[in-house]
């Protein structure tokens, strides 16, 4: 398997001195679902936000180490963060639809990039919706306000919006935490299809979801990477006692 992302000795510290990530080294394979799991406060979200440099928005913090995406260090100050964020899309825990129409949400990213041709925009919107398994539900009302969709539909719209942007990597931070089991199932099914073409990093909202979806899994505990392995391996034969205890529900 090719490694899409290589994280080398990543350290992250917030301005107030709290340490978020301690010496993380981790390889993320391309065309697979990599699951980052562990109890809250473990640094999973912080790590995701390093990968598209969304941490830049937070007040002063120090980052040390390297994150290589296709061999290039994205933490380098010279990095074009706009291009990076187009390449590395993100779906958040709470579905945030922009106050636009359904179509407006889908084409937003491309319009920011300067795409004006209607055919291209429509094409991207349709592709995103189909990949996110939402096309059949909204194809006739693309010009309705996006807020009119149900919660589950909104989250799939957020996924479709990222996909319409033609990324290579998709970061998902507990994308199904607010969804019912049926909607969750639809999102997970979509991910299984998507991993053929995209590199997916998922912070799951439960250990069960981690075990269900992971091709590759990494267990985080209080800013530390305890163990990383192929999904099946890690959930059936964890090497570390702490991983085993967490996976079997002895703490959490």
């Amino acid at each position, binding site marked *: 398997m090719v490694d899409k992302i290589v994280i080398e000795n990543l350290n992250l510290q917030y301005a107030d001195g709290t340490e978020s990530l301690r010496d993380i080294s981790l390889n993320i394979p391309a065309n697979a679902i990599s699951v980052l799991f562990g109890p809250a406060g473990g640094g999973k979200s912080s790590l995701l936000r390093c990968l598209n440099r969304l941490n830049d*928005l937070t007040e002063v913090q120090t980052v040390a180490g390297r994150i290589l995406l296709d061999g290039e260090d994205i933490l380098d100050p010279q990095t074009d963060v706009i291009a990076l*964020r187009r390449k590395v899309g993100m779906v*958040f825990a709470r579905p*945030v639809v922009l*106050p636009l129409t359904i179509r407006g949400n889908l084409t*937003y990213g491309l319009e*920011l*990039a300067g795409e004006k041709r209607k055919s291209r925009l429509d094409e991207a919107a349709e592709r995103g919706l189909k990949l996110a398994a939402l096309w059949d539900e909204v194809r006739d009302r693309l010009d309705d306000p996006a*807020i009119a969709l149900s919660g589950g539909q909104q989250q799939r719209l957020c996924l479709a919006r990222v996909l319409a*942007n033609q990324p290579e990597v998709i970061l998902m931070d507990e994308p199904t935490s607010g969804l019912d089991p049926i909607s969750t199932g639809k999102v997970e099914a979509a991910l299984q299809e998507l991993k053929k073409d995209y590199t997916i990093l998922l912070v799951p909202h439960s250990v069960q979801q981690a075990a269900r979806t992971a091709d590759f899994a990494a267990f985080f505990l209080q800013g530390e990477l305890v163990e990383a392995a192929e999904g099946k391996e890690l959930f059936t034969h964890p090497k570390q006692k702490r991983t085993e205890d967490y996976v079997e529900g002895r703490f959490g």
Partner: protein
Amino acid sequence: MKRASFSNRDLVQRLGFSLLTLVALVTVVPILVVIAYVVKEGAPAISWEFLTAMPRDGMRAGGILPAIVGTFYLTLGTAVFSVPLGIAAAIYLSEYARDNWLTRLIRIAIINLAGIPSVVYGLFGLGLFVLFLEFGTSILAASLTLSIMTLPVIISASEEALRAVPQAFRTVSISLGGTRWQTIRKIVLPQALPGILTGVILGLERAAGETAPILFTGAAFFLPRLPGTPLDATMALPYHLFVISTQVPEMPFQIQYGTALVLIAFVLGMNIIATVIRSRARAKRQW
């Protein structure tokens, strides 16, 4: 025994509510009385001639057209300067400025600016715009003076409207490859616009009704013609009202109240527009 204590509490609650209702009414009554009185006394003066003719007989007859036009020009002039500047300042404070001593200083300055008596603005305008910059007593100088007075209102209201837009919209826009400015222009500003407009109108409304800031900077006692350029002085409703109420002997009572009615209608009209914009935007809002 238990029942008794319950009905006692009930009584206290009712008394409390009645008292609060009464207090609320007390605040509304003076406004209604003032408006009703001005309408009652001023309405007979209102006629087509009153609104469209020049004053005659040392302003004791004829119309108040130059004052109406003057107030319109002054409000427009104030808008030209204060709206772009105020909104730009609000965008800077809400979207770009970090929380440091400079930003805090700017905020304190804005708050204090809002508390300065309007006559002080008038003197400041006289010194800076009329004399130093040699704009003379003119619509330009008066508009600039009113702009400075209006800025704090516009900045505060706009900043509040911008801050009310959920942070999550900004994060999502940035995560999709938006720059900060694209995010402001495409998402934040359109969402904040109704709130900003409301603040702008309320600020301009205050400018339209002020006398002191234009007293030394642009208002004329009497002009036989309408102002032609921004460098002309102008009559204006609030100052005209002051003049005909205190400076002209044997002034017909009706004309005074008629002028007051026109001024109140102008200001209330702006207020109503602001209220309509706000309530429409609230109904349409998606967050």
